[in-house]
Structures are given as structure tokens and as C-alpha cells.
């Protein structure tokens, strides 16, 4: 089976599970490292960032006691989730990823060209997600410790600006989050950003693939577990011809996947484990996805040609009819 189709199915299944799961008494907890938004009523499992920010907005000494243990416990669950399937959270589960991928498919259907970042620009943008992550940690801490200028309105500042908050509840017919908050200045600024980001989600997909993901702080969190995740993306440098097919196909425009000749584990900072690079690789065993060291998907010339010719076969069948 075509891996990209499988991936789409997985994204769909998780979208339904996470967005509507509550209706069927499914609950995967609220410590998930993915943008299944906690603002969705009766969700089947939700994003850990909101709870994380709330937990952080406490006076520092409290973290030495029970609060610290609570925080560690919660982060432990997140880490566990992350270690087991690594970045597949982004490539195979995140509803936000699904939406961007669907829009990309739509763009492909109408043959609109995408654009790519310049190499230097791409590198520079990598730091944005860490800046967001730092703010996401520092602002709640600041609030909890009475840093002047930070109002209580900011408690979960990232949620205020997160595009998932206005968007995801819509799938449950809940429009209450789709608004701009005029009650305070910070509220106004952050909620405006959120709505703009929703707009960007829909427009950017017609220009770039996975545009929002390149800034996502969740990716920054997940990438802490890149090299220890059970799921890994591996490369055999000698078999690689550096043909560039992989990095061209990569929605995150990762260069290392093509350039690297010596490293074996190639789950890089921005990799979302979509495995499109393996689809595009024409060299036998040059790239391989493994779970706990066991190969699950390997690049091959034969497989490459099969994947490339899928619609050729379809054409032939059409002609016969």
C-alpha cells in the first residue's frame, strides 16, 4: 500500500478520534504532544500545552514541592508519547498537519506551483519555534511570580494566539472561540494573531507546504526526542547518490536528508516523519524507517518506479475502457 495514502488515512482516523472521540467515551488524556485542541468540547484526547502553561504560572518555590512533581509527571507522559512514535505525531496524527496536507493536495489538483525558502532563510526560520517555546514557558512563569507588566489575561498566552483554538472547535459546531477579544490589549493582540494564523493556514498552503509547522513550538518540544524515539529514519550514506530527490520532496525542506553521508539517524529538528523522502528515493536501501531497529519501510529502485508510475497504470486502464 502506498505509504502516503496510509498516512492520510491515519491522519483522518486520528482527527475523528481526537475531535469527536469524547462522544464515544474515548479519552486519550490531556497530555498529548499534538494540536488536538483542548478547547474542542468532549475531545478524545488533547494538547498538553494548555495544562503545561497553567502549571507553570505558579510562584517558583512551589515547584520544589507537590507542584513540581505534578509538572514532572505530566511532562513524563508527554515524553512517553513522544518517545514511542517520535515525530510521527506531526506526520501521522496532528489535525493541523492533516489540514495543511489536505490543502496541499487541493493545490496539487489545480496545479498551482509552490515556492520554496532560500537555503539561508530556511535555516534562519528554524529558530522561531524555539523563541515561541521560550515565551510559552517564560511568560506563564513570569505571571506566576508577579513580574510587573504581565497580566493574568496572559495565563495561557500561547493558546491565545494558537490558530487551533479558533479553528478546531468549529468542527464541533462551536463558534465561540472564533472571535477577537477586545477586553484587554494583550488579549486583543494575541487573539488577532490567532485569527490571522487561521487565515494563513488556508492561504499559505497554496504557496508552501506545511508553512505553519516551520514555526510550531510543539515541533520544538518533540525534537528533544529525535534521537531516542522508537521510530527512526535512517540513512546508509554509501548507497546515497545525493540526487536530491528526498530533499525536494520533503515538505519541511530539510537539506540534511540529502547532504548527510555519515550520520545514520536522520530524524532532524524539523523532520515530521512523513516518509515522503523514502517515497522519492530511488536507491536501494539508502533510506529506511525503523521501529525499535526493525525496518518498516525501505527505499528501493523498484518501489520508486512503482510509486512513480501509479498514475501511468491508471492512464493505461482508462485507455483500455
Amino acid at each position, binding site marked *: 500500500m502506498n505509504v502516503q495514502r496510509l498516512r492520510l488515512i491515519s491522519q483522518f482516523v486520528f482527527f475523528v478520534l481526537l475531535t469527536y472521540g469524547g462522544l464515544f467515551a474515548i479519552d486519550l488524556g490531556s497530555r498529548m504532544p499534538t494540536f488536538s485542541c483542548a478547547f474542542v468540547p468532549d475531545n478524545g484526547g488533547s494538547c498538553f500545552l494548555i495544562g503545561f502553561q497553567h502549571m507553570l504560572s505558579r510562584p517558583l518555590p512551589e515547584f520544589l514541592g507537590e507542584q513540581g512533581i505534578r509538572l514532572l509527571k505530566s511532562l513524563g507522559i508527554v515524553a512517553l508519547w513522544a518517545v514511542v512514535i517520535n515525530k510521527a505525531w506531526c506526520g501521522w496524527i496532528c489535525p493541523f498537519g492533516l489540514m495543511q496536507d489536505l490543502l496541499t493536495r487541493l493545490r*496539487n489538483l489545480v*496545479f*498551482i*506551483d*509552490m515556492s520554496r525558502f*532560500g*537555503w539561508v532563510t530556511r535555516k534562519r526560520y528554524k529558530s522561531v519555534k524555539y523563541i515561541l517555546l521560550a515565551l510559552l514557558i517564560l511568560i506563564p512563569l513570569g505571571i506566576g511570580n508577579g513580574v510587573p507588566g504581565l497580566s493574568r489575561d496572559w495565563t495561557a498566552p500561547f493558546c491565545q494566539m494558537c490558530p487551533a483554538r479558533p479553528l478546531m472547535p468549529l468542527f464541533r459546531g462551536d463558534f465561540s472561540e472564533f472571535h477577537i477579544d477586545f477586553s484587554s490589549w494583550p488579549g486583543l493582540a494575541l487573539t488577532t494573531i490567532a485569527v490571522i494564523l487561521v487565515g494563513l493556514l488556508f492561504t499559505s498552503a497554496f504557496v508552501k507546504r506545511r508553512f505553519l509547522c516551520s514555526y510550531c513550538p510543539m515541533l520544538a518540544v518533540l525534537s528533544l526526542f529525535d534521537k531516542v524515539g522508537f521510530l527512526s529514519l535512517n540513512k546508509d*550514506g*554509501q*548507497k*546515497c*547518490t*545525493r*540526487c*536530491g*530527490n528526498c530533499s*525536494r*520532496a520533503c515538505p519541511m525542506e530539510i537539506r540534511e536528508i540529502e*547532504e548527510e*553521508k555519515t550520520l545514520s539517524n536522520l530524524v532532524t529538528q524539523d523532520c515530521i516523519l512523513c516518509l515522503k523522502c523514502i517515497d*522519492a528515493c*530511488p536507491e536501494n536501501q539508502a533510506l529506511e524507517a525503523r521501529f525499535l531497529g526493525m525496518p518498516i519501510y525501505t527505499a528501493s*529502485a*523498484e518501489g*520508486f*518506479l512503482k510509486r*512513480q*508510475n501509479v498514475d*501511468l497504470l491508471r492512464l493505461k486502464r482508462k485507455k483500455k475502457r
Partner: protein
Amino acid sequence: MKAEDKKPSRRERLAKKIKTNLSMTVRELFEQIDEDRSRPKAMAYFDSIFKNFTGGGENVVQVPEGQKVIGTYCVFVPEELVYAAGAHPVRLCAGTYESSEVGEEYLPDVACPMVKSEMGLETMPILDFYQKCDLVALPGSCHWKLKMAEMLEERKPVHVLDVPRIKERENSRQYWLEEVKNFKAAVEKTTGTRITRKTLKGAIRTVQAAQVEVHRFFELRKAIPAPILGRDALAVMNAYFYDDVSRWAAALAELNDELEQRIAEGVHVAPASSARILLTGSPMVFPNWKVPMIIEDLGGVLVADEFCTSQRYLSDMVAMDEGTLNDMMMAIAERYVLPCSCPMFSNTLERRDKLLQLIEEAQVEGVIYHILKGCHPYDIELKMMEKLMQDKGIPMLKIETDYSPQDVEQLRTRIEAFQETLRGRRRVQ
């Protein structure tokens, strides 16, 4: 009309003489090849293409009336663009010794025999299809070729492609993409046909379909004991220079089926005891099959090669992703340059890994490094490759030669000694 006008000029007489000599060379070569009774039957199709080199080569390139023919030199010309415009690409890299003499009028003595041969064929009516080209696409891969482009410009429409020498930079990739777009425009102008998303996609699919057989072929070639001789493998790939891609692929499919059957039945062309050799270095084009003929006559078997006229030519594949015209153009541009192991590039990384991989996969025992006198790119890399083979413990023989038959005996002695070494090593192990 005066009587003198009808008398052929000196050049015409020379052309006629060269044609006769070439025809003789071809006939003699095939007399020798045909003696080998163990060849796969499906080789007959490929033989027929080369047998047409006699008497002016009118039937080497067979295209329907009115179809444009675009000549190409080197592996850097994106053939998909030619197919997409409905034209027929013919690779003009030449191996005829007979025409070198004429080429020498234009080039210094130390020039590579291949460009000499080509200049001869380009400037004198010896082989029909050199005169038939509506456009000649010439990548400036080495300096001989680059200057050849200029010399040809006054005779026929020539399009030069400037291949960047450093592959790893963003700016050189953008530059090359622009070069490929320029070539697209040149093809469109020559053919009067616009290349569209649909035609380009069709062309990519056509070539990919042929590559299915190419990859199968190289896999089968590696079998132990060898089901096909290396010189026949070179011939198969060389035939693609002139043939229609789909017709050629169909013939190759037939050959592959036969090879599969041979392997199943244990039929082979060289016993398991034959030394397994890999050829690399300057390209070899028909009828310059001097070296492979000697190697295999002496009992060795060529199980892989790294020639731009053979295994390097069609191995790499265009990866279509989003299917827009730009996406395909980028994919095509990158396929022709990035994975290429040609020594014209600034580093030898791709070549090293390719060689080691071939050696491993085809269980190669020794490497023969072929240098055409005057072919600088391959000559320059020799020492580095020698060092690499030394480090890996693979014996390597360097052969420096040209198209003349004079050194055959001397080559035979050296190659025989080399094969003896390889056999000796096997005994020790």
C-alpha cells in the same frame, strides 16, 4: 556542365575512403563477436543497429519522416525535454578511429580521441545521422567539448549547456535550472512545438518505463556465473544512443527475460572461475570496443562498469512529485547533475561511493581504469581512485590508450598479467 565538376573533390574521396574503412572495421568486429556462440539470442536486435554503421550509416537512426533529430553530447542533456517536444535524441559521442584523422585538422595532437573522432564525423559526410541533426546540444563538460561547440557553431545550430561544477550550492542549482529552461526553449524553437505539462509528464513516464528494464538488466548482469558478457552489456546501452526509447526498452525486456531464464537454467557465458572485473574511466563507444574485447577474450568477465556511456547513463531517475511544469523541470534538472559521478565536478564523493557500491554488489575482484589519452578529467582523478582501491584492497590496472589498434598486443599482455594476479589472489583466499 564541365567534366571536372563531376569529378569528386579530394574531401569527397577521403570521405568515401573513410566510409569504406569504417565498414570494414564494423564487419571484422562482428565476425569476431559472432564467433561467440554463447551469446543471448536477444542480442541480435542490438547487433543490427551497429551493423548498420556500414556504408554511411543511413539506417542507424530510424525516425519517421518529418520528426526532428536533436544530437546530444554527454549525459547532461535532459532527453525528456527532447521527447516531450516530439523529437528524437541521438547521442553523438563517437568511437570511430577512422574519422579521427579528419578531426586532427581542427584539434591539437594531444586532444582526446573522442573529440577528434567527433570533429571528423561532424565535418565530413561519413555517418549520415551526424549530418541529419536539426540541433546539436553540447554541455561544456570538459574543455574539449566546450570548444568543439564553438567550432561547430558555424556549421549547424548548436546549443551549449553550461553545467555547474559545484553541485552542492544553491546558486549553482538555480543556475543549472535556468540552463535547462534555456535548453527547453531551444528545443521548442527547433521543433516548433511547445512543451507542456502533459507532454513533459508523458516523456518522463516513457523514460521511466525504459528504466524499469535498465535496472532489471543491471541486476541480472551481476549474477554469478555471468549470464551475459560485459561487452554485450556495453553494446546494449550504446544502442540506446541511436534507438527509439520504447522500441529499445522492449528489446531490452526481451533480453532480460532471456537472461532470467539463463540464470534459472544455469546457462552462462563465463565460468564461475573467470575474474570478475569492473571497468571505469573514460567512456567507450562503438566501435571502440578494443579493451572490453581483449579483457573478455582473455577469459575475464566485465560484471559492472561506471561509464557515462553505460551504467551511468540511464541509472538515475527523475522523481516527479507535485506534477506542475516547474516541479518537473526542477526534478529533471537535478536528475541530470546531482547524482552524476562524472569527474567534471568539484569532488569525487559520488564516484567513490558508486564504485565501492558496484564492487560490493557485483562481487568485483579487480578494477580496470581506462584513460583515453588527452581525457583530462578522468586522468586527474586516477591517483585518487588508485588510493581508494589500495585502501580497500582491490587490485586496479590503469590503461592509457586511444582509438588506434596499434597497442592491442601490448594491452593484451598487460591485461593478461592482471587477470593472472586476480586468479592468484583467489587461489590464496
